């Protein structure tokens, strides 16, 4: 045995061992991408470099042998720098998306491609569970979310984005129809967490913290939980029955709800802190913003969320026959459509820009118009004019679009001297909402009047008190934003309760350059929207407008997904190494060595643009299987892995042993699963023994949600058996 020191630890290794082998014996991690015991050492990736005392050069630990008394450092500054630059270079030439843009654009990082793909395969239960990893109220969110995911969906470059939000609602509705999924809860940690506010943020944090085994109580000032989802979203968009069911599931996990409990009246942050191990402030933004227009104080001028809350609680304010709504967002749409349903004859939406600039969802804008709403584009209220203290008309300044502003939208500018007056019975100001600052005066606030909370750790000015959602930092935003914060905050609080500190920043991932993506080979397929109630029916009641997807529609729509995210995401060794070092490949951005390409046979898919040229596939095909189906072609930057004469894989002698896929450290080679629509899933792999032609053989079985998705030969007998995947599947089932 040889005695050496690695990272200050005394290590013994047999004579002739490499430093890498010695480190692994001692459970010391050294990253490698081109090394595998199955084949000869190669030395390409250079990530296994280590520094040894007295040796001026860095050593590749996969080939350098141990010697007596050697002192090795596997994480020295020089080693880390070398690996960091190596990874930056590698990723600058790795053309692939780790995860799909829809997921990246979702503030909660919901695995949209995952659940859309599962729905396409009819795997609704698995889809729902996947959604619930990130969203505790999917049926509700699916209905109300302005779906940033769809804005990033690349299918729109072919024709229209996938209807991701409605597919989410579909999967969640399927779950609500039968025995709803209630997740398993971890054993109790004995830690107590109080959450102030039972809106989407508070409920989400409560759900995930409870699952982690903490004891959670949610305090809310209203009579029922749900926050803005309940008191800010009209019934026709989100039926309260759906919300109730979803909240009931959260309660089932063991969360304690305390309603009609107001901060500052029934308790204080300090009092909760004294009784709990952590407090999360998720009080929301419950005050309508002012427009600072003369006449706002007149009777008949209402705040948007105040108006909606009144309607929902059954005490709708008097709005008369002529109603004007000021604003262009989703609250404005909710308000105008609610006004229509309350029986108003003339409903105007006053908006200072044009339809194209409206922040509200396009579908909402269209549906409101169908219901009879009249848009007054390029107008801005100059004054609300009253009689006897009651609003009677609005003077509107006519506007035109000028130069683009910081947001890229063209700035509306008044047309000198041009005004218009419209008669109204009531005005609803739907231009934003704010935190009621008096409620949280114990906490440090920013200039905007919102709670200062760390963007990654969610900590506030009081130790042990965290804050999320509309009440914090930049103020009110969409529900999914609050949900995303709540999910990450739950993890941060969990860490805090364990005495740790967790950075919830999203680690590095690889993204393709959108400009380089070619869609010309994609066949056009129109987006499917669920059927809706006809305008003349729906404008008279508060029934849900959308009728939701049928199974057939949902599957068909989900099939449209372009499958942008990498199927090897969960297994990708390359990504794990990349995330270990704080890399910024952008500084080396340049030409990509290979065009995005696709080649497949019955089981294996190849995409050389993701290849990192570790050579494991070529070497294993040659050294282990003696097949030589693929080889290294060309040289230098443009080196490529390919069959001879650039033939497709199915014209080679490849026997589908799958070894190359198993060894591929990234997503350049993938093995198709048994699903008809391929989906990146966090499969669980187990080695199982089967009998092939009377001989014991080992296969690797991948399961997801209990279902077998792949059976991959995992020893010489199975690899050389010549069995097809169907025959292998039969052995496992």
């Amino acid at each position, binding site marked *: 045995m040889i005695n050496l020191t690695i990272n200050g630890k005394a290590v013994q290794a047999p004579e002739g061992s490499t430093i890498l082998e010695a480190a692994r014996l001692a459970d010391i991690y050294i990253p490698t991408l081109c090394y595998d015991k199955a084949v000869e050492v190669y030395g390409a990736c250079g990530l296994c470099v280590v520094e040894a005392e007295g040796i001026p050069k860095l050593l590749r630990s996969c080939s350098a042998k141990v010697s007596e008394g050697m002192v090795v450092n596997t994480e020295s500054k020089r080693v880390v720098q070398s690996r960091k630059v190596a990874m930056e270079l590698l990723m600058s030439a790795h053309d692939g998306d780790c995860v799909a843009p829809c997921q990246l654009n979702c503030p909660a990082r919901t695995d949209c491609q995952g659940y859309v793909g599962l729905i396409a395969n009819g795997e609704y239960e698995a889809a729902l569970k996947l959604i619930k990893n990130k969203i505790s109220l999917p049926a509700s969110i699916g209905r109300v979310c302005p779906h940033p995911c769809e804005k990033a969906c690349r299918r729109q470059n072919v024709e229209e984005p996938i209807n991701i939000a409605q597919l989410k609602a579909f999967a969640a509705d399927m779950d609500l129809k039968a025995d709803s999924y209630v997740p398993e809860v971890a054993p109790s940690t004995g830690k107590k967490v109080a959450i102030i506010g039972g809106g989407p943020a508070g409920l989400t944090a409560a759900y995930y913290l409870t699952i982690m085994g903490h004891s959670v109580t949610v305090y809310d000032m209203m009579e029922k939980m749900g926050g803005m989802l309940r008191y800010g979203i009209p019934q026709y968009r989100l039926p309260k029955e759906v919300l109730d069911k979803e909240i009931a599931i959260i309660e089932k996990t063991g969360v304690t709800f305390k309603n009609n409990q107001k901060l500052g009246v029934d308790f204080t942050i300090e009092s909760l802190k004294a009784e709990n191990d952590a407090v999360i402030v998720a009080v929301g933004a419950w005050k309508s913003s002012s427009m600072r227009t003369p006449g706002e104080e007149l009777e008949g001028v209402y705040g948007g969320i105040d108006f909606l809350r009144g309607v929902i609680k059954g005490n709708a304010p008097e709005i008369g026959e002529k109603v004007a709504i000021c604003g262009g967002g989703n609250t404005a749409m909710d308000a105008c459509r609610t006004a229509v349903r309350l029986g108003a004859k003339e409903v105007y939406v006053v908006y200072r820009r044009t339809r194209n600039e409206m922040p509200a969802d396009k579908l909402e804008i269209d549906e409101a118009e169908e219901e009879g709403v009249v848009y007054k584009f390029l107008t801005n209220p100059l004054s609300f004019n009253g009689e006897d203290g009651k609003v009677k008309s609005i003077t509107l300044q006519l506007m035109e679009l000028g130069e683009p502003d910081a947001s890229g939208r063209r700035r509306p500018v008044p047309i000198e001297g041009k005004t218009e007056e419209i008669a109204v019975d009531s005005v609803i100001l739907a231009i934003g909402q704010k935190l009621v600052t008096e409620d949280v005066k114990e906490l440090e606030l920013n200039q905007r009047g919102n709670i200062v909370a760390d963007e990654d750790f969610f900590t506030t000015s009081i130790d042990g008190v965290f804050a999320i959602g509309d009440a914090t930092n930049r103020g009110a935003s969409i529900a999914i934003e609050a949900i995303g914060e709540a999910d990450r905050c739950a993890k941060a609080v969990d860490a805090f309760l364990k005495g740790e500190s967790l950075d919830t920043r999203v680690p590095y991932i690889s993204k393709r350059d959108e400009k380089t993506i070619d869609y010309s080979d994609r066949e056009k397929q129109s987006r499917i929207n669920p059927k809706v109630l006809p305008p003349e029916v729906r404008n008279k009641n508060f029934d849900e407008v959308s009728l939701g997807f049928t199974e057939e529609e949902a599957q068909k729509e989900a099939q449209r997904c372009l499958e942008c995210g990498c199927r090897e995401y969960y297994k990708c060794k390359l990504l794990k190494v990349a995330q270990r070092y704080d890399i910024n490949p952008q500084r080396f951005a340049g030409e990509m060595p290979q065009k995005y390409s696709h080649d497949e046979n019955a089981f294996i898919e190849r995409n050389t643009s993701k290849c990192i040229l570790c050579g494991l596939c070529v070497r294993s095909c*040659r050294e282990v299987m003696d097949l030589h189906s693929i080889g290294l*072609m*060309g*040289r230098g930057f443009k080196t490529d892995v390919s069959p*001879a004469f650039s033939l497709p894989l199915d014209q080679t002698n490849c026997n589908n042993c799958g070894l190359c896929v198993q060894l591929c450290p990234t997503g350049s080679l993938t093995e198709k699963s048994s699903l008809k629509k391929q989906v990146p899933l966090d499969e669980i792999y187990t080695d199982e023994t089967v009998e092939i032609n009377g001989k014991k053989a080992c296969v690797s079985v991948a399961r997801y949600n209990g279902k077998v998705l792949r059976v991959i030969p995992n020893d010489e007998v199975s690899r050389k058996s010549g069995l097809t995947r169907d025959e292998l599947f039969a052995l496992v089932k």
Partner: protein
Amino acid sequence: MEKRAVDLSLLDGVLQEYAPVKGSLITILQHTQEIYGYLPREAIELISEKTGIATSEIMGVGTFYTQFRFEPVGKYLIMLCQGTACHVNSSELILQTIKDELGIDDGQTTEDGLFSLKCVACLGCCSLSPVMMINEDTYGSLTPDKTKKILKELREAAQ
């Protein structure tokens, strides 16, 4: 240029001599290219059969070395030196002249099949830089005018 049917019997001698000698792949490919002017796919498949070396390996070797071509070349293969001395003595101008005169880029062949252009590593005639080789002949101390004249003469000789 149109590819003609490949007469594989021309390879018999080469394969007889070198196929049994291990490590001879590059030599075999060099002879094959001498015979056909490039490496035809049929020839590679035959070499694979006779040597037992997989076609993926042969193509891997063939595409690694700049000497090998997989398409026929023109009657005159212009190899323009890219060495340091040539660079310092404005070989870039010569390259531009050839491109202008023949209307082809590096790696291309003229439509009439007369000229192919290839930028190559240092030819080792640095004192005569800038230098090019056309088939077996070396031309040194090139100027744009001299280059034009050489190309003109070759074109006339071919007619």
